[in-house]
């Protein structure tokens, strides 16, 4: 089954006269890392929202075409259903982390899925081990560095065991060491067979990608080294 399949996707925000995405096509295979680059305000985050079901479930606007996650249209899935298939790591870790300990943060998703405590425990241990943050289990996320906080945000998504991961400019607010941690993590996840879409503005981070696409005028095209 194809993890991500976008067919003829167009989107227009309610208060915008123009379509920000225009007949966009995209297919991402299992275990592939696809990077999407583009100028600011071109619609990269909007595309992220469409892929993750935030559009049309949270944001209003006119959405045409289909987004399929493992063959199922995002319109037919609820956000909690999507959460077990797709996880998203946003730009600012501060707006994703709200618990007082790392353990609580990572437990949040599995608790929402009504998993038994033993399974939650197992998932926390597993997710923290994957991102190499086991020793910070009882720490306050606010006392960690930007890169470490972003890894905790990733662990909290991984605890839901999604097959698809989206990184929406997840490295834009972290230092070089933090970026290296995230990039290494992406390669590890790819090796596990997870599908990754990364939205990027920093070309230095594109080395891990199998394919780089540029978003321009609402379409995706292979990246030829220049944005404009």
């Amino acid at each position: 089954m194809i993890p991500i399949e976008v067919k003829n996707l167009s989107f227009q925000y309610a208060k915008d006269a123009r379509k920000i995405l225009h007949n966009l096509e995209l297919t991402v295979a299992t275990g592939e890392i696809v990077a999407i680059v583009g100028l600011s305000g071109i619609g990269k985050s909007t595309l992220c929202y469409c892929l993750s079901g935030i559009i049309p479930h949270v944001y209003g606007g006119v959405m045409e075409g289909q987004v399929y996650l493992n063959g199922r249209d995002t319109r037919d899935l609820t956000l909690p259903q999507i959460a077990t298939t797709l996880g998203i790591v946003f730009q600012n870790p501060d707006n994703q982390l709200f618990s007082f300990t790392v353990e609580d943060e990572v437990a949040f998703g599995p608790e929402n899925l009504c998993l038994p405590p033993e399974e939650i425990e197992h998932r926390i241990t597993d997710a923290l081990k994957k991102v190499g943050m086991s020793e910070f289990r009882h720490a306050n996320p606010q006392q960690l560095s930007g890169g470490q906080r972003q890894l905790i945000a990733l662990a909290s998504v991984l605890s839901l065991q999604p097959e698809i991961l989206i990184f929406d400019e997840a490295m834009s607010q972290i230092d070089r060491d933090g970026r290296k941690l995230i990039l290494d993590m992406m390669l590890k996840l790819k090796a596990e067979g997870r599908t990754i879409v990364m939205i990027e503005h920093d070309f230095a981070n594109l080395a891990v990608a199998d394919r780089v696409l540029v978003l321009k005028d609402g379409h995706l095209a292979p990246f030829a080294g220049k944005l404009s």
Partner: protein
Amino acid sequence: MSYLDPRTKLVMVLTVSSLAVLITNLYLLILVQIIAVATVTAAGGSILDMLKKLKKFLLIFVVIVFVQSIFTKGGQPLWQVMNFTIISDLGLFRGLQMILRFFIIISSASIMTTSTPREIIQGLVQCKIPYEMAFMVTIAIRFLPILRDEANDILTAIQLRGINLRQIPLLKRLKTYSYLLMPMITSVLLKAQELSIAMELRAFRAYPQRTSLRVLKMQRLDYLVMAVCILVFLIIMVLALKIK
């Protein structure tokens, strides 16, 4: 006693603060204050922290005494200026009553600080309070320091443009503070939106109920402490009614 269930601590706080509100007798209020301090100490709280909290309210306490004195009719005047009573014995008595009430409520609330926010939330959830509401409390506690820092950053940015807030007149200063509103509201709305999306994409409200990694269990000691709280409440209330 810091290992007491947060629900037990909540009962302790409710008992002491209810007594502070219901009792008018000054001596009984002093007794309740002593009980509050003893309870905080027994629950593992720090008296020093409690005093630090109370210090912040010192000015308010002084104002309360004066306001009570000026607006309380009757009693013997203790300090008069041109036949106008500034402090009377009855006003002073009422002011002390109010201050003691504040003292008791603030110091009893320190009991809750001996539990982690997570334990308190879990306690609330297990008291059948909807978990959405419990999370609202968590998020408010978690984001308040961030909003305070943000307000400070905006104020610093204003001052870096050459406005010295300490030297400008009060009215102008208040107007300058109003410039905080717009960026603060925008920032809060954006944060709230991003946070709600992040939560929804982690299956928040996927089901009407949710499980929890840690489940609180009441011990025998918790039931005993709760019983003692009820007993103390009843004894002091009976004493209060008899003294009346």
